[in-house]
């Protein structure tokens, strides 16, 4: 126990001497949190630029434009000709544009079914999809308005008009994110992903630095020749920092920002603690497998970046190629995400997420097979300098 305490004191000294540790852990986490939270603070984008080429300039077409402009999602930009609008869409300045043909008003009055054409830029995903749905809604409302005029002229009662225009009403409910906030959706998993990345990189860096700077024998001596004690003491310092970061993150998201959560924020804290522990184990595995700081850091970087995609919170895992689906399980973030779905979205409690706890705990066994290899590297210091 005394040796572990000595190693901890030694590690604290290293931590204070090298600013990279505090910058790469606390600094990076704070910066990323501030970035993603403020970047998507509106939840959903609004006032997306939608172009309108109004060749009719009638009261009907103008009221259509005004109504579209009045929606929260869109902001209308007027164009004189189709080519300029098309070019602006191609350069990404417009998310969509609508062409109202000449004689639009007359054709509607005379029931000649005028053609309205709309173009959606589907390369900018969120903006395009949102504009698309708001244009569809507007066009349907316009259809309804024309029908309403006709029915009113026939003397149909207002109540009946409604059920004739819209016989079916669709109520959409979003479970776990009632406001369909893109920020809530992404940040809930993206920020823990950033923490996972930090944990892996720092674990690899802290353990690997001893090899690189040839201080591993000194570390082993401090720990009384036991690698277990050396690693325990070393990790104790970082575990404390990561734990504080993780719990702060959960409290910040669910307590301060009031991100929707059906279950308990404390279970989410358990989730992030398990994520931290699993990521540390993964980091130890990487440095043990490649006891060479440079290589291990590169491998850790590739591994943690891929974690974001393979966790399956953007493109679901079942949509990936069958051969790749299994790989998602080797990333702690995947299990964090599945735990989060059960606790924060469905609130199903222990019965829902106990399997993910088991999966994350399984990661803790990872350092065992590479233990000898790391010990060998630490004692013999066969580190290639170049």
């Amino acid at each position, binding site marked *: 126990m005394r040796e572990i305490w000595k190693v901890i004191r030694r590690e604290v000294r290293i931590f204070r001497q090298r600013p*990279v540790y505090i910058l*790469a852990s606390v600094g*990076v986490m704070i910066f*990323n949190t501030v970035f993603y939270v403020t*970047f998507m603070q509106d939840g959903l984008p609004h*006032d*997306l630029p939608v172009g309108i080429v109004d060749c009719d300039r009638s009261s009907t077409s103008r009221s259509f434009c005004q109504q579209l402009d009045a929606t929260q999602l869109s902001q209308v930009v007027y164009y004189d000709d189709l080519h300029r609008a098309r*070019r602006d869409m*191609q*350069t*990404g300045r417009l998310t969509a544009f609508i062409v109202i043909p000449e004689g639009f008003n007359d054709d509607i009055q005379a*029931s000649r079914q005028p053609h*309205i*054409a709309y*173009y959606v*830029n*589907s*390369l*900018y*995903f969120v*903006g*395009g999809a949102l504009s698309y749905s708001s244009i*569809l809604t507007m066009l349907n409302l316009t259809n309804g308005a*024309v*029908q309403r005029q*006709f029915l009113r002229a026939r003397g149909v009662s207002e109540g009946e008009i409604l*059920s*004739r*225009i*819209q016989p*079916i*009403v*669709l109520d959409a*409910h*979003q479970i776990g*994110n009632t406001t*369909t906030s*893109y920020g809530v*959706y992404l940040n809930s998993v993206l920020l823990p992903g*950033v923490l996972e*990345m930090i944990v892996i*990189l*720092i674990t690899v*860096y802290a353990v690997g630095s001893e090899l690189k700077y040839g201080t591993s024998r000194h570390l082993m001596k401090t720990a009384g020749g036991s690698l277990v004690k050396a690693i325990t003491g070393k990790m104790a310092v970082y575990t404390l920092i990561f734990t504080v970061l993780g719990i702060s993150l959960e409290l910040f998201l669910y307590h301060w920002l009031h991100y929707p959560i059906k279950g308990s924020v404390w279970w989410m804290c358990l989730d992030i603690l398990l994520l931290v522990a699993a990521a540390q184990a993964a980091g130890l595995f990487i440095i043990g497998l490649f006891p060479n*700081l*440079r290589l291990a*850091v*590169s491998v850790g*970087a590739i591994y943690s970046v891929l974690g*974001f*995609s393979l966790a399956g*919170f*953007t*493109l*679901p895992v079942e*949509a990936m*190629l069958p051969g790749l689906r299994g790989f998602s399980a080797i990333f702690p973030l995947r299990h964090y995400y599945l735990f989060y*779905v059960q606790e924060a979205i469905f609130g*199903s409690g222990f019965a*829902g997420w106990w399997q993910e706890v088991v999966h994350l705990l399984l990661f803790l066994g990872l350092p065992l097979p590479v233990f000898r290899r790391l010990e060998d590297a630490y004692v013999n210091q066969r580190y290639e300098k170049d």
Partner: protein
Amino acid sequence: MKKTKISYAGQWLRDWYGIFIHELRLIFSDAGAMVVFFVGGLLYPVLYNLIYYNGSVDEIPVAVVDLSDGACSRRFVQEFDATRECEVYCKCVSMAEAEQLLRERKVHGILYIPRDFDSCLARMEQGHISTYADMSSFLYYKNLRTASSLVMLDEVHQIQLEHYAEAGFDGQSASTLVQPLVTEENIPYNRPFSYTIFFISAALMLVIQQTMFYGSSMLAGTLRERNHSFASLPDRLQGLGMGRVVLGRGAAYLAIYLVIGTIVTLLIPYLFRLPQHAAWWEILVLLGFFVVDCIFFSFTWGTLITRRETVFVLFLSVSPICLFLTGFSWPETAIPGLWRAVSYIFPSTFGCRAFINLNTAGGTLQTIAPEIRALTVQTVIYYFLACAAVFAENRLHKRLAHRREPQPSES
């Protein structure tokens, strides 16, 4: 400018060439940098293409709770099942059963039709249908919403036609009434809203910038660790030599990255059958501007790196941030002012947009002229910053060396 010596240009070129060759040798003898450049630069595009191979999610399982069980509700469910987006996983007898399936993640949405749906329609009242989407992925929500809206609109038309027929309208006049406007939908560039096309288009250029930044900073960090400084490398360098050092080193990266960049921007889209709507030479022009900008960008910011591995530890999380700053997902117009200003720091902001507009949206060089202009401005600024960094580091290094003189050198 300095015309005091005739051999100035000759000396300049000789120095430049020496630095160029030296840097190439450094890169090719450093396994780590080679891994980042060639494995990282080429592996990531392939991996991302494999991960996002199927760009869209089809037939997500949905539980249906049809309490009405009438002709209209059944037709609705059948049409819903027929959509590309959703499939009926099972018909449940109660909401509780469907909720249980949702929690078990066997289904990702619920379609609920209340008991009075058919009778409401028969009474010419509004019938209600509820959908419940699992928000753990936006694609589930999008699919459920799209499918239910499409079916709803189609059903509404059917019912309206029936109603008008009852009132004595049929044929052409009824369909004109039901649909007074005819809409023509045009979704160019990415018709199925494929995740692959949207993500990869942005990621390809970013991979170029980030691997170059990480690789070159790693090399610079290595040199600084050994108490060398790239700024004073060639001993026979004459004059201040900032331009020679920056341009000489830059040429080495240019040579490597024109090869990697061509593979990433031309060969990878070809291999994975991504849209390629621009002429190959237009892509190469954009690539030229972008790579040069990235080189000076990397040199400038690489100044902060003092040790080999710290670039990853400190700056790895910048990659996803850069990706968001390109506006590929969260639209550019909705980015808060501060972050929009930050986005102007990175070449990727303009490079990715230009590549998307040029290659995927089929623009021309004229279309991407504003981005090219921005890249040029950045290049000039970063060139001078990189020179200033060399100058400052050179000074610092000389002063340190001077102070350290009495000691024997360490490495």
